[in-house]
Every structure is written in C-alpha cells, then in structure tokens.
C-alpha cells in the first residue's frame, strides 16, 4: 500500500458506480494496478452489491393475494360506492 490509499475511500462508491470524474478514475485505476489490497477491496465491494441485490422479485404469498383482493374491493366500494358490472 502507498500513501495514496486512504485518500479515495469516499470516492470508491462513485468509482464503482461509474459516476466519478475521469481524472480521479484514472488515478484510482493507476493505483489499483500497484496495490493488491485496494484491488481486492474494490472487487469485493463490487461483489457485495451483486450478492446483496435481490435478484428476482418475490411473488406475493397466495394467502395475502387472496386477502388483498377482498380488502381492496371493500375499500374501493367505500370510496366510490358499488357499481354495476
């Protein structure tokens, strides 16, 4: 590690998310080439998001789905009144 390491922790997220200015990006990239710890830090931070992202949306539990339909219908009729059809 070099004295440069500590500087950009706050920029890491922007770097990883691609929202950092070019110059700082280039600086970080250069540093990553020579600092194993920072490279692993960056890699694992990237993987953290991959792993923590939900993946597929959760389907509603069938019991909730059934209950919900009745509840919403009732609330709707309270608001708008019963409608034919």
């Amino acid at each position, binding site marked *: 590690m070099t004295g440069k390491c500590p500087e950009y922790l706050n920029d890491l997220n922007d770097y990883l998310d691609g929202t950092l200015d070019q110059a700082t990006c280039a600086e970080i990239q250069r540093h990553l080439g020579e600092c194993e710890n920072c490279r692993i830090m960056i890699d694992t*931070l990237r993987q953290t998001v991959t792993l923590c992202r*939900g993946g597929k949306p*959760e389907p509603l539990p069938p019991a909730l789905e059934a209950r919900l339909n009745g509840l919403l219908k009732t609330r709707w009729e309270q608001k*708008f009144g019963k409608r034919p059809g």
Partner: protein
Amino acid sequence: MDEKLLVRRAQAGDFEAFTDLIKAHKDRIYGLALRLSGNSQDAEDVVQDTFLKAIDKIDQFRLESSFGTWLYSIALNQARAMLARRKQEDLKPIEEYLPVRVAADDDSGGHGHGSHGLFEWKDPEKLLEDKELRQAIDKLIAELPYQYREAFLLRYDQGLSVKEIAAIINESEAATKSRILRARLALREKLSEIFETRYDREVS
C-alpha cells in the same frame, strides 16, 4: 393498455383498472418490503397498507411521475411508519459493522488493519444460487440500521439514482451517498466474515 388511460379510469371509479395498474408492481413492492422489514409478516402489512393508501389517494395522483414511482413512495412511507411503530431502531449503530478505522472516521481508509480479511471471493455468481447463503445475506441486510438499509436497497436493489433517493428520504445528496457507502462497506465486512468461515471449512 396505456397507463394514463388506466389511471383516468381508476380515478373515475373503475376497480378493474386499478387492479390492472397495481398488478405490475405487486411483487416488486413486496420484495422491497420484505428486504426493508426483514420478515414476511411486516412485509405483508406494508403491501396491504400501501394499496389501501393508494386507493385513498388515487384522486391526488396527477401523472407527474409514473404510477410505479408514485406507488413506490407510498410503499416507502408505509414501511417507515410501520418500522417506527415497531421501534426496530434499537439496532446496533452502523459503526459496529464497519471496519474499525472507518468507524473511527479518521480518514485512513477502509482497508488495512481495521478491515476484515482482504481476500478474493471465489465464484460470487455461483454463490448466488446457494440458498443458505441467500438467507444469510437477507439477514445481514435486515440487521443494518434502517436508514442505511433503506438507502442501500433503494440504490442497488431498486436502481434509483442518488439524487432520486435523496429526494425520497429528504436528505442531502452527500448524506445519502455517505449512507450508501457505509452500508456497502458494512455488508462487505459481514460477507467477508461469512466467506472466511466457509473457505476455512472447505479447506479443512
């Protein structure tokens, strides 16, 4: 069918139009609620309260945003209200999850001495298929202090921009960014602990 048309129909009292509108968002809102609350009971309450609220407020929706975004901010408010009621804030402060030196805020970086082991994680894509690990990860997220969990999930689970999140949670962009980063660092630490144990187990 066209969303605007459905909204107008719903606002005129057409229940079918309303159910069509929410259909596309149900699973996503449940998923978010599940991850925000950390348990299915609370998540179900949030989903239910969100749609009831949406009925109450449907006349106020002015098509300034997409219906999904509107529904979404209702869901977030419901999640916050629910968690406030349950007083889930007696969780440990974020500092306890962070590498020692970041927590101390001495600007010396999140790696090095303070950080948990720095080593490569093998095959993260393959790890995603591991059900036990997925559950462990959900638990990690659920244990984060709420404001960090919320910022992190909105950014990476839901793909909102920092600017959008800042507006929703009513914080500055800088504060929002800091929450997202801290959540990410904290999760990295915890994952690192998990993998350290796993790899040891595999090796021995």
